[in-house]
């Protein structure tokens, strides 16, 4: 299911004709963000959450070159199955072609630019633009142009197919794409993060499937607030989710001290990914039906003790830049950026394909009641992010540095969990997240003219 497109020969996103078009200098300006992120000292300038110009730069230099989550392979059963989503703010169609390959195309007609598909998902033979009727097949090829004889001799339909996402790859059921023709492979960009992801994706040979569609909702907050939290922030759980923890504890009282002061580890990835998890066996907040069904001995055999005692107890994770998940709940989500001040959250529930129906149903309901817009945990998360964002435009407010110093210098290789890890309560993965963001923001992407 890898992309079959030739490596792009031009530095543009597409080899499409652009004639005499040239963007003037000054239309796009890049800012040096080195002074906005002190990853080493654990300080952040709040402008990175509010500034419109920085946001446009993020779309060019953080989103466009990165591997971005698109969908789950289970959403594509037959040729013509499609799912529409976004990469950054770019609308894309993900579809299975006749050769059963997953492809992704920019969802924008090459004529005047309308979306060629306005359904969320479905099955189709082609994508016909409803403006003037240009029609594209499942390979993105332009197959029909009404009144084509009105165009000059030089017009060739082959030049005007949908813009294809040059690389689409999967990791254990999760489909990612990148616009960067020169990107490293998805697997390489995940690095040791893949070991942590397997705690959710690789319980047995059958893998995972999506259950029941996508929850979509909007939040008034910068996308990094959510992505960062899922990378690095177990810290908020006891306070933000106090009510949910209380309701879910067997006694209905405050959670025990050993829960509040739980120990665990946080994985800190050099590419900005992060994952945290308690290592205390009492830290299970999973659906009882699922818990009773799971064969932990078999998991120990397959994944090893460290993973079962670590990321399989509970936890949170982000794959840089904007894909996050909860390994035990099977809640996976993407934080679509909608300007500096808004996120559109899209969340799926995934389950083990091998589970009996009643176990899958228990996981689905558990997720709906805990995470998702009405979930008793997620409700309070939404409140936090909109709260941080709503006041961040104040002039004085915006200039007061934010603190990311928890667990500074705690990063080390502990011999049990792969890569560099820190404590459960730590900002280490957050510092790495912003260090990666800083690097990308200050590095010209493949689509930029070489300044030399």
């Amino acid at each position, binding site marked *: 299911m890898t992309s079959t497109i030739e490596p792009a020969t031009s530095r543009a996103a597409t080899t499409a004709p652009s004639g005499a078009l040239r963007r003037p200098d000054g239309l796009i300006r890049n800012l040096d963000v080195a002074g906005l992120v002190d990853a080493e000292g654990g300080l952040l300038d709040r402008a990175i959450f509010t500034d419109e110009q920085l946001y446009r730069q993020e779309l060019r230099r953080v989103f466009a070159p990165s591997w971005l989550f698109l969908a789950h392979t289970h959403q594509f059963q037959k040729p013509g199955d499609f799912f529409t989503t976004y990469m950054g703010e770019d609308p894309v169609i993900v579809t299975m072609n006749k050769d059963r390959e997953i492809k992704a195309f920019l969802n924008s007609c090459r004529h005047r630019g309308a979306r060629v598909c306005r359904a*969320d998902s479905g099955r189709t033979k082609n994508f016909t633009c409803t403006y003037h009727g240009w029609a594209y097949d499942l390979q993105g090829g332009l197959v029909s142009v009404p009144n084509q004889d009105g165009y000059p001799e030089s017009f060739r339909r082959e030049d005007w197919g949908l813009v294809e996402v040059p690389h689409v790859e999967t990791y254990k059921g999760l489909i990612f794409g990148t616009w960067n023709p020169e990107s490293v492979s998805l697997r390489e960009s995940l690095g040791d993060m893949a070991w942590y992801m397997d705690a959710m994706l690789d319980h047995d040979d059958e893998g995972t499937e999506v*259950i029941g569609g996508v*929850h979509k*909702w909007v939040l008034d907050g910068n996308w990094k607030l959510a992505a960062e939290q899922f990378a690095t922030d177990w810290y908020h759980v006891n306070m933000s989710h106090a009510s949910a923890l209380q*309701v879910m504890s067997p006694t209905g009282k405050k959670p025990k001290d050993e829960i509040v002061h739980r120990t665990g580890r946080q994985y800190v990835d050099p590419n900005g990914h992060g994952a945290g998890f308690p290592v205390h066996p009492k830290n299970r907040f999973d659906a009882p039906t699922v818990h009773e069904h799971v064969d932990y001995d078999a998991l120990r055999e397959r994944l090893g003790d460290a993973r079962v005692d670590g990321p399989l107890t509970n936890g949170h994770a982000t794959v840089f830049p904007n894909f996050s998940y909860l390994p035990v709940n099977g809640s996976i989500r993407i934080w679509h950026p909608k300007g500096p001040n808004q996120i559109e959250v899209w969340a799926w529930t995934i389950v083990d394909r091998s589970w009996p129906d009643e176990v899958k149903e228990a996981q689905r*309901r558990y997720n709906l009641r805990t995470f998702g*817009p*009405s979930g008793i945990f997620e409700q309070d998360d939404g*409140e936090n992010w909109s709260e941080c964002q709503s006041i961040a435009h104040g002039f004085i407010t915006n200039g007061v540095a934010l603190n990311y110093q928890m667990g500074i210098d705690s990063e080390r290789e502990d011999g049990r969990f792969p890569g560099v890890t820190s404590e459960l309560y730590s900002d280490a993965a957050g510092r790495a997240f912003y260090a990666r963001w800083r690097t990308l923001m200050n590095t010209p992407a493949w689509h930029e003219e070489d300044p030399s």
Partner: protein
Amino acid sequence: MTHSVLDGTRAGQLADRDIHFEVEQFYYREAELLDDGRYADWLELLADDLDYWMPTRTNRLRRQQALSIAARGEAGFYDETKESLAWRIRRFDSGMAWAEDPPSRTRHLVTNVRVRHASPAVDEGVTESDLVVKSNFLVYRSRLEREENVFAGQRADVLRRLTAPDGVTDGRLQVARREILLDANVLQSKNISTFF
């Protein structure tokens, strides 16, 4: 074809004005309890075997419209029993449910009420004394300083008359089943912290 013609009952027929009035008053009372945050009292209006469901809705091509409402077992905003609603409500009482602390202001408007006598031959799992009711709602939420949300949609209810221990109908209505269709694709709200 109305069932009632065949068996001489009211099954399937529109309710008369007295029952209609009673149902409307029931809904207005319910809305008042929700807007006043009296969730424990609201729970009393719900049957013990309640089925409370609010599916997500997707944009589909017209020929695939049948798929535009998530099926049972698919993604929903609510898929609840009375017990799970009670669990959600207990959270508000913890004093630490920050998404509703300070509480939002809500206004539940219920309109376009259409009341029919249930028809066991047509509607699944009902008895003849049940009412099958459709209504439209508009729920406004004002949160903190300037956050505003509007939730619009339709409810399809089965209302049941309570039976007293002596077997005689005691007259009070309860919601036995509620299907809530929100007229939204991407939910234009950071969360759903109220009920419908």
